[in-house]
């Protein structure tokens, strides 16, 4: 396998423009002869499918939910970044580019990030034209806010439901193409394999989640927009059905998987309350603007928070990071919460939580001030925990939130399999080792609205327009493989449910491949995952029904999670530096902060599947930083 990122030559500002000119075009009359399969209908998938339909391609869209409108992009709260400089505060394409490369801890591709910043303003234009109700000032112009510690106001938002409104904009554009007959949508379908013909992606096998039948779809290209793999940790802020199976199946068909160890943990989630917990809920980290994080000074202090006197509290973020205090970046806030809990100073029934206390702000500014700013979050907290955050401090704990890693793609967003394109969180492209707040929505829509419509044409122009028949030998074989795999899951008839295995995998991942990793913990995790994997295939119990059977769906995903978890740990093991969301305990400064190793690790790690139970092959895409000088972060 040879990794060729195909980054255009020339100055960074002109790469995308000159590349667009060099891309081959398909005449309007011929576009309808090309059939494109889009899997997933989040921001990336829905925007891509709608835009490709508008161009005249014949598009088939599949999604796992009962409607394309329910993809998990819908849950994004905060906002979407764009370099419009409407705020007149010094923002520019260059600054957004710079912030994103730096925020990604210098593990992203400069050329891709620059392009992302370049098209960011077009996204806002497009969404407004669709009727997305972004927040506005009294004069009628768009309102922006500063988000995630940036010094400019470049984040556009629609109350706390930005993801919802952007997704509905893309979904509506998609449904318009459905009405026009350009796009066909098949909901409640799960992709279970990729079909390749002559080394090119030419179709997929899906399971109809209502009837249980396996269906085949053929096309000239396959676009994956199936999201991230955060649920490998079992508990995350992802949706219940968010899963990795589509990208994992493609990995096993030869698509390189890049930087799986780059996972993001969000510090302000509502803690786990018991073994039955099915997911974690995130609260906007804007809470840290006015809330103070603390734990008792003394180990095992189980008094209720209000009975712990001021002198016996440790406001550890303020103590350790006097200049940033409670506003240190996500990874630092998360890691410190873990440290104090590991030291036996965690709070709540489980001891896996820290306090987020608004008492001082309420005393200084009044309770109305807090209600105005964060009322909806306090309501949400009370709905879930039954506790009143105005009276007793909230309890928070970090949770897995986003995965920066994903299938490796070149500048055209094509994976190492020709004809397989990967968009949004499912690819690895733009966020490096750490994603900035409000940048996920930007990337998903940039990929779907403004990149894939150009780059896919270049690929298709070099492909024969002849259709692949779904009764070809390649389809028959792939179908047979999927059928036997599903049959195998059903036939084990053991004692443990898919959820039970998933929970165990999640615990191993969280404890040993979580917020802090070291060689010993990673090796231990790999051993544990191998053990779970073999137990899974011997002791799985799923209901026997071959039609609508959600536990059978879960089982297939869990079978893939245990494998993906191992690759994640393997990647974390080879990356002996700390960077972004990846903290290796062996690589830290004397003060205990993350220490990058640019000399040895300035590359994207792309893994190639080498067969079941074989060590995958590591390929390195070197990263060069010509425009943003490599620097270490400091928040002291």
């Amino acid at each position, binding site marked *: 396998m040879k990794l060729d990122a195909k980054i255009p030559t020339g100055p960074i500002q002109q790469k995308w423009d000159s590349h667009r000119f060099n891309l081959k075009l398909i005449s309007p009359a011929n576009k309808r002869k090309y059939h494109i399969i889009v899997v997933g209908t989040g921001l990336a998938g829905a925007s891509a499918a*709608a*835009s490709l339909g*508008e161009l005249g391609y014949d598009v088939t869209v599949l999604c796992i*939910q*009962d*409607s*394309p*409108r*329910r993809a*998990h992009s*819908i*849950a994004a709260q905060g906002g979407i970044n764009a370099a*419009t400089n409407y705020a007149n505060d010094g923002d520019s394409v260059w600054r957004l580019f710079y912030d994103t490369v730096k925020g990604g801890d210098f593990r992203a591709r400069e050329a891709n990030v620059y392009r992302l910043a370049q098209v960011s*303003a077009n996204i*806002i*234009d*497009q*969404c*407004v*034209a*669709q*009727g997305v*109700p*972004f*927040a*506005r*000032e*009294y*004069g*009628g*112009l768009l309102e922006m806010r500063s988000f995630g510690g940036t010094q400019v106001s470049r984040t556009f938002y*629609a*109350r706390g439901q930005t993801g*919802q409104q952007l997704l509905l904009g893309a979904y*509506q*554009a998609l*449904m318009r193409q*459905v*009405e026009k007959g350009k796009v066909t949508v098949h909901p409640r379908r799960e992709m279970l394999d990729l079909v390749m013909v002559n080394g090119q992606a030419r179709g997929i096998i899906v399971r109809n989640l209502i009837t249980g039948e396996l269906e085949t779809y053929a096309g000239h290209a396959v676009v994956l927009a199936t999201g991230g793999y955060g649920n490998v940790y079992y508990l995350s*802020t992802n*949706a*219940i059905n968010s899963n990795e199976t589509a990208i994992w199946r493609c990995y096993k068909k030869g698509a390189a998987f890049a930087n799986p160890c780059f996972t993001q943990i969000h510090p302000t989630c509502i803690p786990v*309350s*018991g073994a*039955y917990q*099915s997911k974690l*809920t*995130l609260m906007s980290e804007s809470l840290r603007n006015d809330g103070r994080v603390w734990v008792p000074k003394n180990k095992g202090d189980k008094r209720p928070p209000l009975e712990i006197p001021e002198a016996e509290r440790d406001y550890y973020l303020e103590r350790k990071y006097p200049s940033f205090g409670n506003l240190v970046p996500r990874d630092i806030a998360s890691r410190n919460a873990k440290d104090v809990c590991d030291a036996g100073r965690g709070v709540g029934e489980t001891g896996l939580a820290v306090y987020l206390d608004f008492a001082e702000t309420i005393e200084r500014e009044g309770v109305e001030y807090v209600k105005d700013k964060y009322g909806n979050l306090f309501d*949400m907290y009370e*709905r*879930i925990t*039954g506790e009143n955050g105005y009276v007793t401090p909230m309890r928070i704990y970090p949770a897995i939130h986003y995965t920066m890693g994903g299938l490796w793609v070149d500048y055209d967003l094509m994976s190492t399999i020709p004809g397989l394109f990967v968009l949004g969180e499912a690819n690895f492209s733009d966020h490096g080792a750490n994603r900035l707040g409000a940048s996920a929505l930007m990337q998903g829509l940039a990929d779907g*609205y403004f990149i894939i419509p150009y780059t896919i044409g270049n690929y298709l122009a070099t492909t024969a327009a002849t259709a692949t028949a779904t009764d070809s030998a390649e389809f028959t074989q792939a179908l047979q493989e999927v059928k036997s795999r599903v049959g195998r899951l059903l036939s084990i008839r053991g004692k443990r*449910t898919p*959820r*039970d295995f998933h929970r165990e995998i999640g615990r191993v991942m969280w404890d040993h491949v979580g917020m802090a990793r070291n060689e010993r913990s990673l090796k231990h995790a790999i051993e544990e995952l191998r053990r779970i994997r073999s137990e899974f295939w011997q002791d799985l119990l799923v*209901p026997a029904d071959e039609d*609508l*059977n*959600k536990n059978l769906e879960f089982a297939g995903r869990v079978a893939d999670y245990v494998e993906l978890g191992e690759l994640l740990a393997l990647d974390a093991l080879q990356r002996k530096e700390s960077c972004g969301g990846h903290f290796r305990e062996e690589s830290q400064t004397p003060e205990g902060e993350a220490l990058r190793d640019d000399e040895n690790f300035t590359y994207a790690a792309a893994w190639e599947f080498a067969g079941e139970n074989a060590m995958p092959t590591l390929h390195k895409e070197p990263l060069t930083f010509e425009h943003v000088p490599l620097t270490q972060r400091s928040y002291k």
Partner: protein
Amino acid sequence: MSSDRMTLRLKIWRQTDANSPGKLVQYTLNDVSKHMSFLEMLDVLNEDLIRKGERPVEFDSDCREGICGTCGMVINGMAHGPLDGTTVCQLHMRHFQDGDTITIEPWRSRAFPILRDLVVDRGSFDRIIAAGGYVSVDTGGAPDANSVPISKISVDSAMDAAACIACGACVAACPNGSAALFTAAKITHLSHLPQGQVERRERALNMVAQMDAEGFGNCSNHGECEAVCPKNISIRVIARMRREYLRGLVVR
């Protein structure tokens, strides 16, 4: 057993598919924690059923944070259960008492065929949106986002309606099985914005026609939809839809 543990009697609707008759089946569930969400309580029940070799209760859910609109069931006669402005995934068991009997049924409407147990087909909602719930702009060529100022009042009103999550509780709660709140929410959202003006007439006529074609009932102002809406969408949007529809009939 500590005090936050409960025993519940559950009566759950079981049905194989749209063409088979269904029935309420009774289950007893012990050791339910008050901190569980309602869906987690059902997860626990299902784990028990699987281990016993029985078919689990199928129900839809996804984000489990009240925004995707996937989950929905009628709990003791109330769509999404007893808590105001809350989807069933955010309803927690502390709102129930030890020894309670809880009846759980799917959304019931001619236009939402039952697929299994509590899982229904809401494809009719997608077809209503496809009939006109959008602004016809292709990607590219959009004018600068700040070129058309929109008053804060307009955009706030648009956002109030746009908050709809298409869960279908409005339909389930309506004695007529009407989708008026859902359809009106989208018509209202776009009618408040300058971008929505060009197609305003066709949008109202076509979406209402599709709503009728799907077999939803008519609205007769019961207001049940507003009472159960997890996003607190006001019934005023239905009044606005009627005006938009009339306007569409009259204005050329």
